[in-house]
């Protein structure tokens, strides 16, 4: 996958042909300097990066100027990281320079009362006058792995690891803190990053604009962390129009909004219930835990979608048969009775303790595993598999690798959980690139998410066609 530009005004935010970091200086603890260091030293951004500061000094090898207006040639993107009070001044200068895209990382705007609101209004005026688009304020900015661009302030050397792990997930995150957790967590997982945007106060570019952008670029899974929605109807429209999975974790399950609600309806319509409904209508998968932001995408990128709710459980420990069975039903999934034909085929394999669902085996050679996978994946009454087999011999790794291939061949997914310590699961996942889940709950949830995406996708295809 290479950089894919989609001819959108947002392209300059992800893959700018030149960048000015306004507020980057050599003063101690200067945040702008960390952006210059990241771009020049860590990830070696292949396009010009300029520093703008009072002295006009170079920062981490980026040539320095006292104003963007002094920079020779054009500037594609400006990143402003200065005290809030002077941000409007710099926005105006960017306007005069002809810069159309600005990331404002500074805090102290509408989130900080009246004074901040006034500054925001000044920015809005300049933006309107010059036709500028703004990301932020109060954000970490943008990261694009394929373009090798990142304007997150405070990035460490480790950011290089993220850039070496390109993939298909693009994140829209309304919190720098959550962004950090996600970045660190995907390093322990098998999926890679495409883009990450920290949207902050979203005074201009919002989650809906980015969902739309990611629905056209090389993103395969769109994942969001939201604290509020800027324009609900616009977000629903953007999500409806993409067949790519859209996952969202939203915080702030606010209780009854207005006091003294006159009717029952107003009292019960807390924002969260409406948000939940909007997700279902627009085909957005609502995540239940913050960790699902990094744990669920692999089910959607590494496995086919589950076209029904019938799951066959296969385990080498009877306990995990019943533990997972308890979890499947409340998740809206079914544990079908296997057909006589399927049971006969299982019985013929030998070494199977229980030929009913959950299927349970004792110590068995690799060939037995593979034969059972085949029988279960071929069974008409089974839509997907839940494998719960501990890594008690090295060959278990090999049969799991084989299972991933077979799932693609039979177009049915498997959620794989190995009843081992999390440390061991993480090690196996990293070393062998297997889509392993860390708990029975997570594996069951992955199947439920897969089935939900299947239904959303089918509904969108029926309503809007398949070519988008």
């Amino acid at each position, binding site marked *: 996958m290479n950089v894919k530009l989609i001819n959108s005004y947002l392209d300059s935010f992800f893959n700018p042909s030149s960048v000015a970091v306004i507020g980057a200086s050599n003063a101690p603890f200067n945040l702008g300097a960390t952006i210059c260091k990241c771009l020049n030293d860590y990830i070696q951004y292949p396009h010009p990066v300029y520093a703008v500061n009072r002295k006009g000094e170079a920062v981490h090898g980026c040539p320095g100027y006292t104003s963007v207006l002094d920079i020779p040639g054009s500037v594609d993107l400006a990143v402003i990281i200065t005290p809030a009070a002077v941000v409007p001044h710099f926005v105006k200068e960017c306007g005069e320079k002809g810069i159309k895209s600005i990331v404002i990382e500074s805090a102290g705007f509408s989130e900080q009362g009246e004074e901040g609101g006034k500054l925001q209004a000044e920015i809005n005026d300049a933006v309107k006058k010059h036709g500028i688009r703004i990301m932020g304020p109060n954000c970490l900015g943008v990261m694009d792995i394929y373009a090798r661009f990142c304007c997150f302030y405070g990035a460490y050397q480790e950011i290089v690891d993220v850039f070496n792990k390109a993939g298909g997930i693009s994140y829209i995150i309304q919190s720098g803190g959550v962004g950090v957790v996600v970045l660190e967590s995907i390093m322990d997982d098998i999926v890679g990053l495409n883009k990450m945007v920290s949207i902050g106060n979203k005074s201009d570019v919002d989650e809906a604009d980015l969902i739309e952008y990611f629905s056209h670029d090389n993103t395969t899974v769109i994942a969001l962390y939201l604290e509020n929605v800027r324009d609900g109807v616009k977000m629903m429209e953007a999500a409806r129009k993409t067949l790519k999975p859209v996952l969202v974790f939203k915080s702030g399950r606010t209780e009854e909004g207005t006091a003294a609600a006159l009717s*029952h*309806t107003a009292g019960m*319509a807390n924002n969260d219930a*409406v948000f939940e409904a909007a997700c279902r209508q627009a085909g957005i998968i609502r995540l239940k835990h913050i960790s699902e932001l990094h744990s669920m995408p692999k089910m959607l990128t590494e496995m086919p979608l589950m076209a029904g709710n019938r799951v066959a459980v296969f385990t080498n420990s009877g306990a995990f048969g019943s533990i997972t069975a308890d979890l499947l039903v409340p998740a809206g999934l079914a544990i079908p009775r296997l057909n006589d034909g399927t049971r006969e085929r299982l019985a013929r394999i030998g070494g199977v303790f229980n030929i009913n669902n959950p299927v349970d085996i004792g110590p068995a050679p690799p060939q037995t595993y593979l034969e059972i996978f085949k029988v279960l994946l071929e069974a008409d009454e089974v839509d997907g598999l839940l494998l719960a087999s501990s890594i008690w011999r090295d060959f278990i790794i090999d049969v799991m690798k084989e299972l991933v291939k077979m799932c693609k061949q039979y177009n049915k997914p498997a959620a794989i959980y190995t009843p081992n310590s999390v440390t061991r699961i993480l090690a196996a996942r990293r070393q062998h690139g297997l889509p392993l889940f860390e708990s029975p709950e997570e594996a069951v949830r992955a199947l439920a998410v897969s089935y939900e995406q299947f239904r959303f996708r089918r509904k969108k295809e029926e309503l809007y066609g398949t070519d988008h």
Partner: protein
Amino acid sequence: MEQIIKKALERGQKTLSEYDSKQVIQAVGIPVTREKLAATADEAVKFAEELGYPVVLKGCSDKAAHKTEMGLVKLKLSNADEVRKAYAEITGKGLDLDGVLVQEMIKGDREFVIGLSRDPQFGPCVMFGVGGIFTEVIKDVSFRVAPLTEMDAEEMIDEIRMRKLLDEFRGSPAVDRKLLVKALVGISEIGYRHNEIAEIDINPVIISGNRPVVVDALVVLNNPN
């Protein structure tokens, strides 16, 4: 419908009376109780006899949102004397009423709630759930953002925990889902088209046989006056 709303806004009303609320709801094809507004006791008796006993009498006013608590609701009236007595009690409270509503008495064990509210981010939203006096305790409701498709309405009906109440229940037939779907889509239409309506609260919708019938309703207006 437009005229009722216009008149109420001109009069500075914050809500519509039960009678007017039901007229608005009925206009989008939702079944409501058969009822008439009586101005005298004689008229009330005449209407009661036309509807057939038993009937319900309710004091009707846009200022009477909590009619039961105010003693303005008289149930199970089964003859002319009872109607006259109830009429006298309701009108004797010294309230400024539009009249006394004479209403058929709907019998049914299953009560639902349908509502319309406005979300600051998502706009008009429709609610469906288990109704009656315990609605707010049970809190078994689902929502959809307007405008609703029939599929949205079907899904939100299936989302309530007590969805089995919609099936055959203690000798009563399964609820006519088509009528429920039509009602939910109709309420969505009102919310989507009429910004001057802030909220609608329909509670209860009683299932009579297999038919949902609106027994009480309240339309809340966005009145700039």
